[in-house]
């Protein structure tokens, strides 16, 4: 069971690196949504049997991450003229290398943390940390507002991977609360992105530097 | 009781004589016959009978100056022992009263000078005050040496101490403060090296410039006060540099009179052979006096 789990996690890692590599915003959105769907399936594989609450938790996650958020993103993308990310802070290839380094660091760090018996072999913790780091790298190196939102979503996905591990600990209400928060956060950010687009007529966050010391 | 009466008589009558002796010595040095020794008495009497000219810009301070100066100097005179006799007024801590009485005199003299509003009087009082700031520490170092030697803080026993305890360790400090006190005496009473009492150049005067505007009885009070001041400081100096007494009253008083007149002669000689110092160099002289006394003090407490 764990090697199927590991294979999915490896796919998630690959998606991370791909998201870092592309410069077209649309492809980033698509990568992130696939990743969201994949991590939605994780609890099915890791625990075999599934209680009703866990299932009820997974369905909205997949729906949200796979369908709703990408829809909002493409909708926001509609009236932005340039679809391509401007040259990121340290270029595309160095970002990917950085992503890879981040994954190696995640693996090293995960070894520090002792794993419970039933997750001994699984790659869950390293993947989660690697995805979080990828999210950070996307946030730090990209300039377009939408891409930064995508970086935040990748970060969120990383945390959700870990969340899936503890589905039993989180009662349904709290799980729904977390998802609701995520959705509302993205919704508010989209509103702000539209406002930025109208006010600054571009999504390049380097224009947003009037507030400084 | 006799001693106090003698003390008061000597304090009141003798001082002008000192001025007479000094002028006689200077005249003798210059090969002139000079004014008679009692000339100061005649001057005082003449001035007392003169009329008074007051400037319109002056206030009551102008008259208060000379009055307070004479009063303080006379009170200071009562604090110090003359000859072998004790001072009429003696108590522990009177040395500070003695020093600060001269401060009070200086306060009123300089204020009276400034009251006239003339540039020369301002200049004189500025110099007077500046040099006083330098001579005060020297005086206090000397008093501290005497206090250490005598172990008491009353002027009477302090000034009699040198005569009674002539141990070896005490001689060197006494000599040093003697020199320092002599310079302080010359500075305080405006004798030659610091100030020339007979000059006519207002720009160079110190004490004389302060009394330019005083006339008649006021001027006589000032002259008399400066004479008494010379006498008082001279007496203190005598106790340090000529520290021996006979122990019997009828011998000590004449000895004292001889000593004080000798001191006047010495001052006359100094005034004759030395010329005035430049105004810039006077502070160095006074700092020198302070160093003498200070060194004497350090020698003593080593």
């Amino acid at each position, binding site marked *: 069971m764990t090697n199927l789990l590991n294979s999915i996690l490896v796919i998630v890692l690959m998606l991370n690196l791909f998201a870092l590599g592309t410069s077209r915003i649309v492809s980033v959105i698509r990568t992130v949504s696939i990743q969201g769907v994949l991590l939605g399936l994780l609890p099915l594989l890791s625990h075999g049997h599934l209680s009703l609450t866990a299932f009820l938790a997974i369905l909205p996650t997949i729906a949200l991450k796979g369908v709703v958020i990408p829809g909002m993103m493409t909708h926001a993308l509609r009236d932005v003229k340039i679809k391509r990310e401007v040259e990121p802070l340290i270029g595309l290839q160095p970002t990917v290398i950085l992503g890879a380094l981040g994954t190696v660091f995640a693996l090293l760090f995960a070894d*520090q*943390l*002792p*794993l*419970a018996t039933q997750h001994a072999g699984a790659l869950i913790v390293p993947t*989660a940390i690697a995805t*979080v780091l990828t999210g*950070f790298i996307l*946030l730090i190196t990209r300039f377009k*507002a939408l891409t*930064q939102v995508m970086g*935040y979503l990748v*970060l*969120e996905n*990383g*945390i959700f991977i*870990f*969340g899936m*591990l*503890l589905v*039993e*600990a*989180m*009662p349904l*209400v*709290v799980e729904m*609360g*977390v998802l*609701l*928060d995520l959705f*509302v*956060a993205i919704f*508010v*950010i989209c509103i*702000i992105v539209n*406002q*930025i687009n109208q*006010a*600054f007529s571009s999504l390049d*966050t380097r224009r*947003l530097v*009037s*507030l400084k*010391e | 009781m006799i001693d106090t009466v003698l003390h008061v008589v000597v304090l009141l009558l003798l001082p002008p004589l000192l001025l007479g002796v000094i002028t006689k010595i200077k005249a003798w040095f210059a090969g002139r016959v000079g004014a008679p020794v009692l000339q100061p008495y005649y001057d005082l009497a003449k001035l007392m009978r003169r009329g008074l000219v007051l400037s319109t810009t002056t206030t009551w301070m102008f008259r208060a100056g000379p009055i307070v100066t004479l009063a303080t100097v006379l009170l200071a005179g009562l604090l110090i022992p003359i000859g072998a006799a004790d001072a009429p007024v003696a108590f522990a801590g009177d040395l500070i009263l003695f020093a600060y009485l001269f401060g009070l005199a200086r306060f009123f003299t300089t204020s009276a000078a400034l009251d006239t509003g003339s540039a020369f009087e301002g200049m004189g009082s500025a110099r007077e005050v500046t040099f006083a700031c330098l001579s005060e520490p020297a005086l206090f170092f000397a008093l501290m040496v005497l206090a250490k030697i005598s172990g008491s803080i009353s002027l009477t026993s302090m000034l009699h101490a040198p005569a009674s305890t002539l141990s070896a360790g005490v001689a060197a400090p006494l000599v040093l403060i003697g020199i320092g006190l002599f310079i302080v005496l010359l500075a305080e009473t405006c004798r030659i090296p610091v100030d020339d009492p007979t000059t006519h150049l207002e720009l160079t005067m110190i004490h004389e410039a302060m009394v330019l505007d005083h006339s008649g009885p006021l001027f006589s009070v000032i002259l008399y006060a400066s004479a008494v001041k010379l006498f008082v400081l001279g007496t203190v100096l005598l106790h340090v540099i000529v520290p021996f007494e006979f122990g019997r009253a009828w011998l000590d008083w004449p000895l004292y009179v001889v000593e004080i007149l000798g001191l006047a002669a010495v001052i006359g000689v100094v005034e004759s052979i030395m010329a005035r110092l430049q105004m810039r160099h006077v502070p160095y002289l006074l700092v020198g006096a302070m160093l003498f006394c200070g060194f004497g003090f350090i020698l003593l407490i080593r």
Partner: protein
Amino acid sequence: MAFLIIFFPLLMAALAAAVPSNRLRPWLLPVTGAAHLALTVFTLARPDLTVSAAWLVLDPLGKLILLVVSTLFLFCSVYAVGYLRNRGERPNRIFCVCLMTFLGIMSLVTWSHHLGLMWVAIEGTTLVTAPLIFFNHTQRSIEATWKYMLVGSVGIALALLGTFFLAYAALHAGMETSLVLEDLLTHAPQLSKPWLHAAFVLLLVGYGTKMGLAPMHTWKPDAYGEAPGVVGAILAGGVTSCAFLAMLRTYHICFAAGEGAYVSRLLLFMGLLSMAVASLFMVGQRDFKRMLAYSSVEHMGILALGLGLGAPALFGTLLHVVTNGLTKGVLFLSAGNIHRAYGSKNTEQVCGAMRRLPLSGTLFLAGFLAITGSPPFGPFISEFSILNGAFDAGRMATGGIFLFLLLVVFIGMGATVLKVVQGRASLEARNTPYRDTFLTGAPIVGLMVLVLLIGLYIPAPLAGLIRDAVLFLEGQP
């Protein structure tokens, strides 16, 4: 009782959304605030009402924060009515709704004993306050909101990860995983150490971002600088207190797990770093609202420092939450008035506030004296007890640095405040229509009186509440 306190404001928010008229709607705010405060006081008076469900328990810590934020909200809501009347031209539907929703969600934070639920509530306060910051609809406020949302969301995501680490620490130790506070506390010694350390770091960074500890404070000057005065007060007094409550929960768990030394080292470092960074940015600051933001960063540093000093300084730290919240209210509301009157926040244009706005100017100056710890006021008592705590904990050097940083902050803040308050107002500033009215003045006076009261004679119930909270934190039930 918990459901009543939490859902009453949400209900009123819905009602406010329905009310059409722009003039009538703000009046719902003080009504909600007063009712909420009444409910809170009623609950505090009756201890049996504090347990409503497995996750909704009002422990002494929650009571304290609920009381502070509820009081602050009441005064701010009265001020908000005056403010919105003055800003008649802007629609205030979203403003009122968000404010009331905030009150509801904040109550949820104080009641929740499930760490996951608490995280959801704190994230909720972030989302609800975003539109408040965006109220002025200027380019600068868009930028401020963007930074607030992005940095805030990244930070709070790390807090979620930290919560999961905490859950996994219990899972790893073989117990059935549950994020309810009681369970975690009872099993605290058995939690696996590395997961607990990692969890604490993540929670510290996560909730530190919400509190505004340096270096995660970067969103604070922009958000507080661009938000209206009343929103600044709510943020500085309310949201930071909730985030500090979350920090207290984390500290409680780690303390119960015997990791006191590890935790205090990190907290002391973050506290002193925040105070240092805040004092650095406050010297020569020309915008008095940004200055207040840095003052908030500094006081969050003081709270973290107080917590790091451990047991001896706990009373001072909890008291500081109260005094800091109220004094920040005074400062932000009066700064809001001054900003409205002069139409600018730059100290070059703004001077002579005491003459131009006698009430607000004096209160702004009094607030400055209070926040920098001058004796007759509340913050002096709390900062002095934290200093005593530092000496008792044997950390003389920390006490020394603490005092030095307080001095630098005083000089930095004083220069700006005195430039604003003293002197004579320029001509065009004098003839702007804005004047001190009852609605915009009375709440500030009320808050100031409270701060002065705490400074001179801490009321018995408040002192008792803080003492219970200290005992609760130290583990005695």
